């Protein structure tokens, strides 16, 4: 069976109707860019990816502008929202209820196409945020990348004084949920040591309690014991008892963390009308049918959305990195082997299941996050979502295990820094097809580098290039082009990495 875009549109809820151009989707002004509100960052990564381009991306007809960039033609256009009364969409997968995917909200989205990781990287966790070393080691590329671990950008932000210039209300520098998604230094304040996966939270309620500031307790507490604990560590560190230099480094790193704890304990914040959370995600995930209960999976992540919204309202955190590994499908079998690993089969049967699962994530998790954040902030007309960059990326591009043509969907303008309401296609339609997978109908062609996106995100969050770049040409993430793909990425593409991605800067 060969699927068509129309097929999926029908399957998900009806025929495509008129597709009006969205109003007021012009670039935000410089005035907006000078927002008084601090930018926030929320990253969602889902497993697998592998949704074919015709289902994932908007219609090519919406690409109304083009220009030459980095040696090839790139394209953009305003996002075109369609609706049929019950459902609205900007692409077959990017669809939701008309009350959720409103015209206004669609105007705050961006859909980016043609961003490549120019190497093979299967089963990675953290790659979407810049740590390409966390992969399955398959292929020579995977082994090579083991040698270049890097902090993920959420942790770069979490420990950036440019991003967190004022920590007085920050209870948690970052919120992490989902396994092996967020990676950081063992000594983050000095950006040194080893790169390890940050612990992730299983309980949304526990996470909520870490960012929520209840009304002041009137009783006078005893001095925090953390001060005394620090003394105990200092005493050991300074003693003349025998320790190795590595022992002392460990103590130093531990004391850095106690400093951070002390800072957090001294935070003063006001959560206003935010009610305490009562529902917890952990029991949901422990349900016996959780693996094939998409409603439970959606609810699980909606509870984390609730935490993010509360943290942003309270001002107690500005960064979240979530890794949603669930299938968002009622498929009751081996999702990984039977669906994800077979979604590229030309008959399209598994692709249909996969695409529907991604649609559900977009509709019920990503849009849910957007809605929770799309509430007024301060006295201007901006919302928290406007002052946020929410980003949904996927483990693979349009073919499972393929890192070419990564799918990136964003919401919010990062406090006016980003132009929104766009479908931007950076891939080179005249470029030679590249794939690691034989027998595909899907044709992937090279575009710009994903490192450039990560650099753009960090710049949008207020970090200067020199604060994060590891390659002289800019961008973020280890720069490695596998030899068999080197010819697809001319120097002009690599040299562009330090720039904002075209059409994104407001």
């Amino acid at each position, binding site marked *: 069976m060969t699927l068509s875009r129309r097929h999926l549109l029908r399957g998900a809820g009806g025929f495509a109707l008129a597709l009006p151009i969205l109003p007021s989707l012009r670039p935000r002004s410089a005035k907006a860019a000078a927002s008084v509100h601090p930018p926030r960052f929320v990253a969602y990564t889902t497993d697998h990816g592998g949704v074919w381009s015709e289902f994932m991306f908007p219609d090519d007809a919406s690409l109304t502008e083009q220009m030459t960039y980095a040696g090839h033609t790139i394209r953009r256009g305003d996002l075109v929202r369609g609706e049929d009364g019950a459902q609205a969409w900007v692409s077959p997968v990017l669809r939701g209820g008309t009350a959720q995917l409103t015209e206004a909200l669609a105007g705050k989205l961006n859909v980016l196409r043609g961003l490549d990781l120019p190497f093979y990287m299967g089963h990675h966790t953290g790659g979407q945020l810049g740590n390409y070393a966390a992969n399955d*080691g398959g*292929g020579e590329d995977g082994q090579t990348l083991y040698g270049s671990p890097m902090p993920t950008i959420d942790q770069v932000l979490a420990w950036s004084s440019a991003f967190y210039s004022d920590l007085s209300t920050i209870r948690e520098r970052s919120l992490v949920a989902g396994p092996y998604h967020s990676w950081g230094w063992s000594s983050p304040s000095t950006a040194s040591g080893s790169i390890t996966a*940050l612990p992730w939270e299983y309980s949304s309620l526990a996470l909520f309690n870490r960012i929520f500031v209840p009304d002041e307790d009137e009783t006078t507490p005893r001095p925090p014991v953390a001060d005394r*604990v620090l003394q105990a560590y200092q*005493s050991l560190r300074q003693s003349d008892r*025998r320790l190795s230099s590595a022992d002392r480094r460990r103590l130093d790193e531990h004391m850095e*963390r106690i400093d951070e*704890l002390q800072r957090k304990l001294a935070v003063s914040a006001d959560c206003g009308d935010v009610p305490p959370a009562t529902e917890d995600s952990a029991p949901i995930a422990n349900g016996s049918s959780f693996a094939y209960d998409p409603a439970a999976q959606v609810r699980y992540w909606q509870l984390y959305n609730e935490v993010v919204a509360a943290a942003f309202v309270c001002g107690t955190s500005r960064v979240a990195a979530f890794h949603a590994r669930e299938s968002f499908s009622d498929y009751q079998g081996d999702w990984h082997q039977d669906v994800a690993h077979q979604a590229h089969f030309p008959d399209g049967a598994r692709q249909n299941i996969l695409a529907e699962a991604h649609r559900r994530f977009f509709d019920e998790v990503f849009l849910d996050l957007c809605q929770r954040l799309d509430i007024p902030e301060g006295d201007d007309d901006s919302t928290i979502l406007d002052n946020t960059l929410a980003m949904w990326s996927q483990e693979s591009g349009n073919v499972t295990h393929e890192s070419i043509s990564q799918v990136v969907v964003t919401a919010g303008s990062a406090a006016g820094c980003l132009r929104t309401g766009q479908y931007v296609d950076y891939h080179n339609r005249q470029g030679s097809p590249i794939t690691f997978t034989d027998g595909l109908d899907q044709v992937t062609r090279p575009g710009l580098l994903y490192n450039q996106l990560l650099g753009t995100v960090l710049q949008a969050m207020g970090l200067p290039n020199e604060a994060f770049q590891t390659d002289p040409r800019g961008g973020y993430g280890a720069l490695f082009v596998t030899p068999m793909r080197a010819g697809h990425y001319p120097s002009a593409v690599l040299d562009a990495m330090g720039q904002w991605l075209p059409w994104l800067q407001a």
Partner: protein
Amino acid sequence: MSRSRPALVPLLCAVTALALAGCRGRGGGDASEDDDDDAPPADLDELQCDPTVTVPAVALRRLSRRQLQRTVADLVAGSMGAQAQAVQDEIGWALEAWPEDLPTNAPGRKRGGFRRLDQAVHQAHIDAANALGVELGRAMTATDDRVTALMGSCATDDDASNDEACVVDFIESFGRRALRRPLTDAEVAFYIEVFVGETITSLDPSAVGDVIAVMVASPQLQYFVEHGADPVDGVADTYWLSDYELASRLSYHFWQTMPDEELLAAAERGELTTDAGWQAQVQRVFADPRTRQSLRDFFREMWWLDGVAPLDARVGTPVFDAFRGDFEPGPDTTAHAVDEVLDMALFYALDTDGTFDDILLSNRSFAKTDDIAQLYGVAPWDGVSEPPAFDDPQRVGLATRIALLASGSANTRPIMKGVFIREGLLCDDIPPPPDNAAANPPQLSAEQTTREVVEALTETEGTACATCHAPLINPMGFVTENYDALGRARTEQVLFDEEGREVGRKPISTQAVPLVDLVSEEVASGSADLAHMLADSGRPHVCLARQWVRFSLGRIEDDDTDACMIEDVAQRLLDGESLGEALRQIALRPEFRQRAFAEDGT
């Protein structure tokens, strides 16, 4: 039984390198292009024990999550008497919130990692220690009854004149257990200061709670703080551990928790730094039931048992339902299958004087539950009497256990079975698959057996896949194809279409050349042959020794510095020493009682 080392080993080393090197790279790379960096792990004869080499230590090793949780639980149990359970209940959330340890694998390996090797310290650990300490302090002093249980009646009587002595006594006694050694005068003074400044004028329960909180978060509880005592003659930068340091090392290794009173008392008497005293305590600690959990952790992680697929995931799907027939896996079936393997390991390691060969060649069921016993076709084991023997002559050894055969689907996974034996049992390094090899998983066929499907997919001559799969991976999995994807014995494979309709039956072939030693082309006719070939090769014994040393040292072993320990354990296993004794002996090695303090960080 004493076994001499395999005669082929000297030849093996050279050929091993070639064999494994030949199955690597994208596009069927040339074996001759490989270099020594990709050589397989050394077998026994490649190890060169040099007792003068400095054995690196893990820097300021922290307690694992399990160790931390048990320590706190034991502290509460040993301090609170009848009030302990109530305190445990109240602090449960704080213990559960402790960050998980991540399985830490050998370089290039994706499975088989030990969680106690995870030494990362994150902000979450510091936050959790603070929260746990504060909560524990609050809970232990929440009522007069608890304060009395913790400190004695001096803390709650009306006599203020005994308060100072009461507090000092508490700091010294509780601190001795929490910090696992007597506190120094300076430390006592420090904790008095924590209590309420420099002078004790009243006994405030919240101040007692603060003392508890600080102790819980202190480096002496959170880490293994080791300073060493006397230098080790002839080994650079290396010192013998002190009595109390030895007490902690021993108890945490075998019990995953703090030393008990007897161990602390032995340390106080200076007995642990004597050979006789140490041996006596090693014997006692190893024989204690608390050792069981530690060994369960070891075997569970070494044999990848956390990765056993959920066996009930596909109940309700047409093909799986047709395949499973009357047997319906439940939500606990996977855990039962894992328990069966672990019960087997402990039966031979602790409950009897079994050997590692007994595990490799066991033909008995350790299934205590009906579901696993039914799959085996035996009666459930009562856990006390002699485990029932299998009627099936092919059901021999570890590789024929349900947990290691069942796939959670209707089709077996010969490739993964082969990878487990290569990496998990033999410690061979298999090069990574080519880019995107996983894009074409084996499919259940209506015309072919799983073996035939796998052969067609991965053994086509001249392909990159064939260089690894044909000689090294697939045969190890093919020899157990006489068991289906639930681990049930079979002689033929029932073939289904996608709707679960039976469309044919084909005979099973288990004959293969497993290349256990990477040299001998001896044919295995089935799983029993494979089990004997594995046992006879001695290679699983060396592999087990490696992993036991890894688990014991808390780091990836190094052939240059850890050869003496690996060789010792391996030789004991090869000589037919009881498995328990071979494992216990690690604590009698001098390296176990020493610590390096080199300035380069080791």
